[in-house]
């Protein structure tokens, strides 16, 4: 790759140093997003009803089995789901990025599809598939084996079922991180190993795996945190089974009469655990970091699988059955059937559900409008904030960049539902009443998306070696100019990916929205959750499918914007 800078575009002028204003501006934004709600949470965690200082909330938390059980459940859930995600994503990521398996692009697109699917929608779809008595798969099982009516193959209303469903929609995080990392490992390193006599396995062990390890570890951590803070799937699957996770427990504390003190206290262990995990990741990875995109780059080397490539493809498609094919099939079936879990045929199909959603469901139009407005706004603003902070920290451009980095990462530790509470406490009262407007949801969605957006872009910045930027700086370009003309274009794919990531994140978001919506600011996820609580599965199927179609359309469109080149879905 060569970088040519026309001489007339590099005038030697002295510019005002923008560092301090930028720092102050972004620190202020992050304070509004994070520090204020967090402060309220801490305050509430340590006071009683009357506002006096107490440790009683924590005492209740760690002695009352009503709280200890959900905490233990959550830890089991997050650990298992994290391990399963890695087990599924690691081989898949490697097959897609480093082998000649056929249909690799299709597989990436299908993983994107499972990422775009909101977990709560996936959970509902899996209810249709694997509810012990009415689930389609159990019906097939009974039909095939002639098993009696009360026997079942799968029970989704169980801890194992919940772990499975959560893994289905969390593994894309691990997959994307890993596949992207493997994409970026240049083939010349592996070639060097091969030339020096390393066999395939030695090369894998000594070169490829160590280079991919940080991504896998980061993926495992992300999966753990995502599972720990997930609200929708446990609310849909755990409560019918008669158990709580931390998030559903916290949520139940806001049933009338609300107990925000206990909820705040209950969220602090999650916060602490997250900080510890992030520290541990740092310790394990140590100072290992690899700048693998430099001035020159060789293409990744593909392993020839030979006949095994069909077996590999079969393996990948079996995995993809779980998050994509089966649930989508179940939703389609439910959309056209009178009873959501009976098989549709020409004799009994109905358009009633479709008519209901399009012509009768009066809350739908506003909710769809709100959702997409928020999606586009959050994605655009969020990407802008993340790119500037990521640049400042990755390049250590200004003093205090560490603070910015910390603030941008901090929300990862806050379950969405708790952030929702914090924001509610902050902005439901004067001087700044944002509750009841879309602004409070915008703040919530940006805050929730910020850690991953920031991490994504920061690692993208890190993988672009500074020698290219230094070259531009030597030619006299300012930092901002370098960012715009050099680094920005190089990171185009990552920028689009981040935008899509936030956009999809908004569509998936339920936990903060459920605390912050009012009837005028309802979003589709909340509407679907409401419909699930009243058992209107046919309407959910139609609404969910509409949602998915629009989301895919937006993601594909953004990836096709002229000037953004041929960035692919792969990075979302």
């Amino acid at each position, binding site marked *: 790759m060569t970088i040519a800078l026309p001489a007339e575009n590099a005038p030697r002028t002295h510019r005002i140093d923008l560092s301090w204003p930028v720092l102050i501006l972004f620190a202020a934004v992050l304070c509004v997003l994070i520090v204020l709600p967090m402060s309220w949470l801490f305050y509430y965690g340590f006071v009683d009803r009357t506002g006096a200082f107490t440790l009683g909330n924590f005492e209740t938390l760690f002695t009352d089995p009503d709280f200890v059980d959900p905490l233990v459940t959550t830890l089991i859930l997050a650990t298992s789901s994290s391990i399963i995600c890695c087990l599924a994503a690691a081989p898949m990521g490697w097959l897609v990025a480093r082998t000649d398996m056929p249909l690799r692009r299709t597989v990436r697109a299908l993983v994107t599809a499972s990422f775009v699917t909101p977990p709560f929608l996936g959970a509902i779809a899996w209810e249709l598939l694997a509810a012990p*008595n*009415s689930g389609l798969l159990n019906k097939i099982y009974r039909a095939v084996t002639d098993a009696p009516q009360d026997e079942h193959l799968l029970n989704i209303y169980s801890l194992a079922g919940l772990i499975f469903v959560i893994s289905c929609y969390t593994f894309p995080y691990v997959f994307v991180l890993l596949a992207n990392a493997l994409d970026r490992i240049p083939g010349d390193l592996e070639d060097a190993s091969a030339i020096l006599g390393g066999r395939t396995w030695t090369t894998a062990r000594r070169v490829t795996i160590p280079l991919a390890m940080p991504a896998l570890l980061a993926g495992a951590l992300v999966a753990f945190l995502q599972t720990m803070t997930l609200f929708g799937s446990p609310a849909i699957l755990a409560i019918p089974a*008669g*158990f709580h996770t931390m998030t559903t427990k916290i949520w139940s504390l806001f049933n009338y009469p*609300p107990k925000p003190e206990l909820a705040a206290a209950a969220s602090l262990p999650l916060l602490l655990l997250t900080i510890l995990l992030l520290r541990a990741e740092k310790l394990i990875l140590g100072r290992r970091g690899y700048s693998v995109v430099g001035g020159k780059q060789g293409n990744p080397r593909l392993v020839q699988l030979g006949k095994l490539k069909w077996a590999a493809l079969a393996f990948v498609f079996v995995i993809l059955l779980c998050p994509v094919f089966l649930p989508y099939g179940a939703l389609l079936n439910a959309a056209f059937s009178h009873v959501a879990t009976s098989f549709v045929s020409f004799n009994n199909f109905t358009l009633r559900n479709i008519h209901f959603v399009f012509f009768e469901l009066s809350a739908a139009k506003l909710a769809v409008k709100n959702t997409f407005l928020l999606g586009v706004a959050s994605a655009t603003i969020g990407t802008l904030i993340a790119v500037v902070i990521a640049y400042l920290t990755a390049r250590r451009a200004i003093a205090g960049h560490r603070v910015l980095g910390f603030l941008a990462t901090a929300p990862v530790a806050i379950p969405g539902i708790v952030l929702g509470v914090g924001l509610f406490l902050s902005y439901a009262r004067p001087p700044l009443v944002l509750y*009841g407007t879309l602004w409070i949801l915008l703040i919530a969605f940006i805050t929730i998306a910020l850690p991953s957006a920031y991490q994504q872009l920061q690692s993208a910045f890190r993988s672009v070696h500074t020698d290219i930027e230094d070259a531009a700086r030597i030619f006299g370009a300012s930092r901002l100019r370098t960012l715009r003309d050099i680094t920005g274009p190089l990171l185009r794919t990552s920028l689009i990916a981040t935008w899509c990531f936030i956009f999809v994140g908004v569509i998936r978001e339920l936990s903060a929205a459920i605390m912050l919506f009012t009837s005028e600011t309802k979003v589709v996820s909340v509407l679907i959750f409401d419909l699930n609580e*009243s*058992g209107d599965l046919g309407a959910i199927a139609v609404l969910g499918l509409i949602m998915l179609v629009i989301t895919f359309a937006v993601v594909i469109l953004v990836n096709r914007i002229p000037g953004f080149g041929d960035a692919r879905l792969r990075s979302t």
Partner: protein
Amino acid sequence: MRPMRFSRRDLLKAAAIGAGAFTVQANAAEPVTPTLVAAATKEGKLAFYTAMDLPIAEKLGKAFEAKYPGIAVRVERSGSERVFQRIGQEMASRISGVDVVNSADAAHFIVWKRDGWLAPYLPEEVARHYPAQFFDPDGLFATTRLWLSSLGYNASLVKPEEAPKSFADLLDPKWSGKMVKGHPAYSGTIMTATFQIVRELGWPYLEKLAKQKVMQVQSSTDPPKKLALGERAVMADGNDYNLILLKEAGQPVEVIYPAEGTPTVTGPSGVFKSAPNPNAARLFQNWLHSREAQQLLVDVSRQHSVHPQVEEKPGGRRLSDIKLWRDDPVGVEQASDDIKKRYAQIFKV
């Protein structure tokens, strides 16, 4: 046990007497005037917060829109206890979203009345026809619908002769893992029913029921739907009207009115003082309690109306043939926090 028995005939009689006796209310009663319709049409929309089954609420909204073109009804449907919490949260932040509210927990209107959140508005037909026990003397709310929290079963999973006949039957080990029920912290129907179950049978009954591995859903509209799916064989509570509708639609479900008595639930509606569309809200409240709307409600939803002129479909089971437990909103208002707490302890969710 204090079973309440009243027939539609009694209601009619009460109304006939009422027509003479309540002239005071009749004076304060509000007719639908062209001025009101014009002002409501100018507002053009209203938000109807309700807990009734969503398709039914939407049908009511569409019927209103057909009668008064240009006024869009947005139905905000959730469980009554959730609606109550949301309205409280919105009011505390001085956000006025709700125009008309219909709750399945009549106790909520005691609270809202005490808080001074409801607007006095007594529709003409309510004052003229409704028995006095079914509307607020200050005109803050009126009973929109009446239904029962029954038991039920899926007839393709359970033979009629083996189906439970009473609450006590549900404690038989053979129903372990086969039942579904709603949640009193979400649903007003279930809250009201739980209050009456506790009053008549005591907490020990629920403690034993909790050991039966009951599938816990939220809304009282969901257990009937779970029965229709075939997901569970028996519902331990839920509403009877969804079961009747599903049965009429050809699903293999049956209602059981338990031998001990069946919890009665009333769902009043009222206009909020802070209604963003005050005229449309009043017009809707007025229409909702008219004979026309009440007849529609009875026809499409198989609930009951306290409007004496409304005809029930022939063939359905009459309220007078069912042993009913008395509805007691005052009692529910006092007990609801305790019920939610104890319920969560017993059922773990």
